């Protein structure tokens, strides 16, 4: 724990400015050695200095260096951040020089791990940092920042407080059975109290759906028979929206053809074959492939050709769409209509004239309530770990509710209630568990 670590801390991409973060006892001294400018070992904490990084008398880059001394830093250790200006190559060179000077390259998530271990962040906050690194839209960034500020922790604490009040009441009944002033919790008056807790937990889960949308985006599959215009639709959508160029390898969990942003939410067009953006790959995807893509998608756009009759294959795809959010897009509306279908979510368009593209996007906004998300206060839960813990806590409360019908005495039910309380405590790290840390920190990606 005592060594000094460094890594490139800014997100991937080709932005002009990159930041190299250094943390640990040797941070300031090491950077001072390679810095041409003020003597960094003598400057005040939380100050920024202009200068150059030099190596063997050669200027590597023009930089701004921030000096932040322990303990009021991200990791609570001495931290130096070097803002480089020359793009990827000089940034990498600066990092190499630091490593040559005895620093160690940070492991994935190690800065955050140190921040957590040094008591600077609680677990939800540490997870949020991971999401901040990966965040690509403004909305995601806001969501991530809100979590860092502990808003999720506050919401969880609120539910925990309700639960602990109930537990305390039960405990008073048990430990001071002759004490009349406390309400006697019985199998009759317990259900409404548990239902209140249940509702709180359910509303947290409901919010988490929005959180998942923001952090994970919407996976979209464009399916249909060959040559109905799937790839032209995709290209039109991507072109229209100045598609975000994604550095696919290693950053995204799904293999995607491309992404667009709609009301701040990412639409990720998936290609389960994993074939990259060659011109007409999408077109070649047949019906079998379409069927497997449907399983993976949050939204399916079923493309039909206005000029062809509805076939057995179309019906096959359509049958699979019944439990999915889907839109039917009828292409080539300029050609004579041979297609006869009835479906509530049909949009007629033409990828050549761009007709139908706006209605298609509006339909997506409508189906996912995207307008609402954008305006509402963004304090939602998006981590899978957090969502699972809330679900488990909810199960535990439901278990208690079910067992009331079985006449199980209150002192047993208290076990379920206490369990829910402990699970929620795990979210903010108030209940300690070994495995938790191991899984949590293995999730972080290199760089922060």
């Amino acid at each position, binding site marked *: *724990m*005592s060594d000094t670590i460094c890594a490139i801390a800014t997100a991937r991409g080709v932005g002009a400015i990159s930041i190299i973060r250094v943390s640990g006892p040797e941070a300031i001294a090491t950077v001072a050695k390679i810095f041409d400018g003020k003597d960094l070992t003598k400057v005040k904490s939380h100050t920024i200095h202009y200068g150059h990084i030099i190596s063997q008398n050669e200027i590597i880059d023009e930089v701004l260096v921030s000096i932040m001394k322990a303990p009021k830093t991200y990791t609570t250790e001495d931290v130096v951040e070097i803002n480089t200006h020359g793009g990827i190559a000089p940034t990498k060179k600066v990092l190499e020089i630091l490593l040559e000077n005895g620093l160690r390259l940070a492991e994935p998530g190690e800065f955050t791990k140190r921040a*957590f*271990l*040094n*008591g600077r962040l609680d677990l939800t906050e540490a997870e949020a940092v991971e999401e901040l690194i990966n965040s690509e839209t403004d909305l995601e960034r806001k969501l991530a920042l809100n979590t860092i500020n502990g808003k999720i922790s506050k919401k969880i604490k609120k539910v925990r407080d309700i639960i602990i009040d109930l537990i305390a009441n039960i*405990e008073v*009944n*048990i*430990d*001071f*059975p*002759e*004490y*009349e*002033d406390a309400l006697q919790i019985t199998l009759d008056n317990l259900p409404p109290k548990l239902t209140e807790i249940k509702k709180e937990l359910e509303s947290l889960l409901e919010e988490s759906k929005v959180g998942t949308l923001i952090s994970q985006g919407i996976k979209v599959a464009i399916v249909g028979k060959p040559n109905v215009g799937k790839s032209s639709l995709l290209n039109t959508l991507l072109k229209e929206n100045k598609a975000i160029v994604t550095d696919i390898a290693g950053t995204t969990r799904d293999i995607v053809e491309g992404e667009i942003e709609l009301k701040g939410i990412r639409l990720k067009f998936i290609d389960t074959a994993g074939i990259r953006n060659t011109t007409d790959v999408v077109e070649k995807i047949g019906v079998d492939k379409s069927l497997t893509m449907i399983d993976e998608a949050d939204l399916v756009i079923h493309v039909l050709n206005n000029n062809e009759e509805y076939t057995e294959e179309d019906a096959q795809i359509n049958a699979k769409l019944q439990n999915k959010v889907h839109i039917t897009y009828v292409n080539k509306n300029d050609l004579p209509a041979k297609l006869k279908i009835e479906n509530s979510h049909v949009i007629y368009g033409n990828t050549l004239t761009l007709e139908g593209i706006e209605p298609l996007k509006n339909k997506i906004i409508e189906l996912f309530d995207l307008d609402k998300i954008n305006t509402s206060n963004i304090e939602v839960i998006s981590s899978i770990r957090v969502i699972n813990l809330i679900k488990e806590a909810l199960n535990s409360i439901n278990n208690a509710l079910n067992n009331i019908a*079985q*006449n*199980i*005495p*209150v*002192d*047993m039910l208290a*076990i379920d209630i206490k*369990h829910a309380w402990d699970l929620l405590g795990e979210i903010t*790290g*108030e209940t*300690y568990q*070994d495995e938790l*840390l191991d899984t949590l920190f293995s999730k972080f990606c290199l760089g922060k």
Partner: protein
Amino acid sequence: MYDLIVVGGGHAGCEAAHIGAVLGLKTALVTANIKNIADMPCNPSIGGTAKGIIVREIDALGGLMGIVADKSHFQIKMLNNGKGPAVRSLRAQADKITYPKNMLAALKNTSNLEIIESMVEDLIVDNSQVKGIILSDGTKISSKAVILTTGTYLKGNILIGSQNTPGGPHGEARSNYLSDNLKKYGLSIQRLKTGTPPRIKASSIDFSVMQEELGDDTYHTFSFDTEPLYEINKQQKCYLLYTNEQTHQIIRDNLSKSAMYGGYVTGVGPRYCPSIEDKIVRFADKKRHQLFLEPESIYYDEWYLQGFSTSMPIDIQEKMVHSLPGLENAEITKYAYAIEYDAIDPLQMKPSLENKVIANLFTAGQINGTSGYEEAAAQGLIAGINAHHKIKNIEPLILKRNEAYIGVLIDDLVTKGTAEPYRMLTSRAEFRLILRHDNADLRLRKIGYENGTIDDIRYQKLLLKENQINELKNILRNTNLSLNPKTEEIFKKYAIAIPKSSISLYLLLKRPEITIDFLKEIIPLDYEPSILEEVEIEIKYEGYIAKSYKEAEKMLKLEEKLIPEDLNYQDVINLASEARQKLEKIRPKSIGQAARISGVNPSDIAILSVYLKRKYNK
């Protein structure tokens, strides 16, 4: 020369001296006044929530409290009977004359045990190891181990209003120098406070305006080895009464005269047992507070006014008592008082109750910061066993949190310390469904046998009980309900729906409306009530019990991650400074124990785990 000297003859001292002698140690119990052996200076009861289970555990491990209480009470009841098996607990109104008498007789009947009447003022300490004691007249008595069970007598101060009198309960002489001498040897001493309510002459009480509180109409015993020695309908009554606005006004008007509120007390009092002035101040909106009148003994005419503990001056106490319905003409025989006393910081003890600073010195009871006869007795028992084990070079007996309330009690003391007199509560036990009243013998008798405190006869009895429990469970598992006119008649008689298919009696018993007594009507089950009860609980609540065992296993995994006793916490970089200080002082045995220390956060535990892994698991 003795093997073991026990200083103090209270509930901790009695158990410690007895068990030491049972284990074969040449033992001396030194008390300032032999008449005060097993004295009950406060409430006239043994047991209560959680405490009743502790008494059962003491009995299961070969201690005396349960056996003596069974011989010495005039009312007994099962608390929380309606709430569920995990929190049931016995409480007896013990007779303040017969309980000490029976305890003294039991001690006198113990071979290897000698009782010495004298005041102890110092220890013989050589090279950080205790070698004996020094009496107030300068006599030295040497021993291999010493157990201090000094109760509230270390620099005891009795407070009534602004009046402050040095002394122990009943105005007995206090120990003036022992705590200073302990300080001299490097122990840190804290000041604690407790209190007791006034006693009222029975013939001056008008009971007719109060509500009767009766004992149970079924027989109970604390001990697993005794038969009930009382008659149900000869149990004494207790009474319930309430304070009123007049009482509250008197208290409010005179608050500044109370020792507590007048600023005459430095010790910290218990939150769970507040004085009546505390209750009035902190719960100002309450119109009335419950009080109980309990007889102290059938041999004298004095009643204990539970819930009315106070440190008001005498004249105000008179007014307060006379404002209560039925006590308008009451004669107060003993005024309420608060008592302050010295205690050691329990963080200075190992989980064996041996002192960390002075080897072979053990402490038990109120000196360790606890409150209550039962908590004291439990520690006395463990200190006695572990003093023996220390002398004989045997691993100490350390009960785990999932094995006994006694384990929870000691672990809490040595891990968290205490700023107020510590009382056991069921909510302190995270696995209380496992730590039940009914299964204390099943949990602990074997441990007692292995540690030499349970003899062969009692151990064989345990094995027989275990066999019968398994046998009965198998019968229920292997017997299917046969539906015929006779059995259907029984269902009808109890107004229980007849099952549609024939299921095993085991599964039938899991249904909420079915009891083991009901099953007894279906097939003959010729077993002791304790066996039937045990099987019923284990089957009915199998799911929850299994859940508790699973949770306990999780805890045990952390307990198995041991921390070397000589770990230098200065080497563990990045620990928060508060955590480092606590860890250095407490020296937890395991990661599990470390995680329970207040002020040691999850991040500190993670750092410590990583450090241990790197250093020792390579």
